[in-house]
């Protein structure tokens, strides 16, 4: 009993120090939401009129329900957290990711530029061209041709932004301050990139496939917004798709309608949206956001805050092992007599998650969760457990996934890197037992 009391004291200290440090910065989440929502209103209302030419399709003021102060972005759940309204970047709160397959309106949005406005007619006339130094010929397909000439596949594929969790890095890293919600796993339907590449043909010089999309730069200039790519080995993976459907529906405009790449398990920036061209390169693709420090981490571990030369930065490939508690929502108050069910998802980039554990004593002891097999390779897995709390008080549930190679999620923030990528620290929710 004394030991347990001790533990509880420690937990109180932990909470207390957390409060003093005001770790999340100058604005609380609530005040961020408040200011965030105002700026979002600003965007929704002002953009179409003042900056009409830069505004994405669909972002028109009819989205606003003034009476309810409902704000949102086209085709998306109103409770998505809008981090940035120009370009649109929005993440999903953990409890909204509870579905096995992430619904289209809950799938996060990470835009680097302004999406093109694509009408149904334009989508019917949409073409994908393929070329590049290592392509044996230049070829162009309409979406209808892709559908008719190649076999169609559907895979559940996890997409996570490379910068998901950035907000916790210290010293802070610049960019959208993602918390936990730049991740989702949907059922994507399309053709294998592999089949397309083989139909075009490529030389033995081929090392990389780069993409180009139809989004435009926020400054209004005609520069390419983002053009990233993947090595041939990933491009030829069976699950790498050129997709036109998401969960059996049209892909939301903000997620790449009418055509996009889906490269499961790798930074979502590899999965080019509004896809219009692919290039088979004889070298590592060198489009915008492939070079410098973008989507790269130090090749060797570095001390926090260190300046790293571009030449010492390496391209991120597979995302690390990670998990998310999607039920209950943080802040649940339950009675001591109740056994609390928890559940969520776990994923590990190219690998499978082998084991899932939770802790209710700040990582001192761990208990194993039930963990499902992935529905297909590169799909996230689902875990669940039922917790009996020993006594009343404040608890945190920590979740920790371990991948096939034995790597587990860290409790603290993993290796600092200049741009704040790959934070896979364990997810935590707060519970009160009364």
């Amino acid at each position, binding site marked *: 009993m004394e030991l347990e009391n001790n533990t509880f004291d420690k937990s109180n200290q*932990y*909470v207390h*120090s*957390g*409060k003093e*440090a*005001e*770790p*999340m*910065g*100058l*604005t*609380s*989440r609530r005040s961020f939401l408040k*200011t*965030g929502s*105002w*700026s979002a*209103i*600003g*965007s929704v*209302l*002002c953009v179409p*009129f003042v900056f009409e030419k830069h505004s994405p399709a669909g972002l*028109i*003021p*009819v989205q606003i329900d003034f009476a309810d102060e409902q704000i949102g972005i086209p085709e998306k759940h109103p409770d998505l957290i809008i*981090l*940035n*309204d*120009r*370009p649109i970047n929005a993440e999903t709160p953990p409890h909204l990711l509870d579905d096995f397959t992430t619904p289209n309106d809950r799938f996060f949005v990470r835009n680097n530029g302004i999406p093109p406005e694509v009408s149904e007619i334009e989508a019917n006339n949409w073409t994908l061209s393929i070329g590049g130094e290592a392509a044996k010929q230049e070829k162009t397909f309409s979406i209808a041709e892709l559908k008719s000439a190649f076999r169609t596949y559907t895979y559940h594929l996890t997409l996570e932004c490379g910068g998901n969790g950035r*907000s*916790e890095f*210290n*010293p*802070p890293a*610049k960019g*959208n*301050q993602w918390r936990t919600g730049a991740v989702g796993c949907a059922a994507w339907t399309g053709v294998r990139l592999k089949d397309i590449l083989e139909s075009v043909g490529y030389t033995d010089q081929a090392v990389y496939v780069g993409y180009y999309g139809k989004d435009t*730069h*926020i*400054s209004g*200039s005609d*520069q390419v917004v983002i053009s990233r790519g993947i090595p041939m080995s990933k491009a030829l993976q069976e699950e790498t798709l050129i997709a036109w459907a998401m969960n059996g529906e049209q892909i939301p405009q903000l997620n790449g309608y009418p055509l996009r790449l889906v490269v499961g398990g790798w930074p979502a920036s590899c999965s080019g949206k509004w896809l219009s061209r692919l290039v088979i390169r004889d070298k590592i693709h060198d489009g*915008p956001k492939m070079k410098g420090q973008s989507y790269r981490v130090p090749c060797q571990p570095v001390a926090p805050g260190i300046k790293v030369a571009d030449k010492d930065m390496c391209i991120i490939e597979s995302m690390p092992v990670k998990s998310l508690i999607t039920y209950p*929502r*943080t*802040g*649940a*108050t*339950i009675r001591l007599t109740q056994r*609390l069910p928890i559940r969520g998802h776990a994923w590990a980039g190219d690998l499978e998650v082998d084991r899932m554990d939770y802790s209710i004593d700040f990582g001192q002891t761990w208990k194993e969760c039930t963990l499902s097999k992935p529905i297909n390779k590169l799909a996230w897995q689902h875990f669940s457990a039922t917790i009996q709390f020993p006594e009343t008080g404040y608890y*945190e549930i920590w979740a920790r996934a371990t991948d096939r190679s034995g790597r587990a999620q860290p*409790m*603290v*923030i993993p290796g600092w890197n200049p741009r704040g990528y790959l934070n896979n*620290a364990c997810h*935590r929710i*707060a519970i009160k037992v009364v």
Partner: protein
Amino acid sequence: MFFSFLNKNKKPLSLDTRMRSAWHRQFSLILGAIKLVLLSAISMLIYLYFGSAIEGMFHKSEPLTTQQEKVLNAKRIQRQMEAEQEKIENGIHLATGLKVAEGWDVVRTTCTGCHSAALVTQNKATYSGWKEMIVWMQETQGLWDLGENEEVILAYLTNHYAPNEAGRRSGLNIEDIEWYILDF
């Protein structure tokens, strides 16, 4: 007697009568002018009050589509909101979320031309960190030379959006948690 001119088709009038009818004519002209002014004033008033209703009777105005109505409604709300947004509450400019302090207006006009102010307010950095972001935007995103504004902007950002010591990982922000009773 206002209608004395109707007499003209009757038998010839005496001199006296003619004199009188001349005076009548003058008088009725003046009265007519007054009547005209009064009538037009009344019709003006009627038009002002009921004009649109009357017009509506003749003009079958095209019914607004729901979309048009929504846009019009949104424009009205936009005007309301724009006025609302220019407000400053607790030192925060509501439209942008920027902290109102020396240099904030320069930051607003310079930075929000291309991107949302949220990209500023959610970030934290030291002087050199903010400087690096400016240089990065100039090198890759088409940001222009900021001239003497650069130091104003950097001073504002460094003072108001500075990193705070968080250690290796912060505790959960307890004040931010919205507690609720979980029924299951």
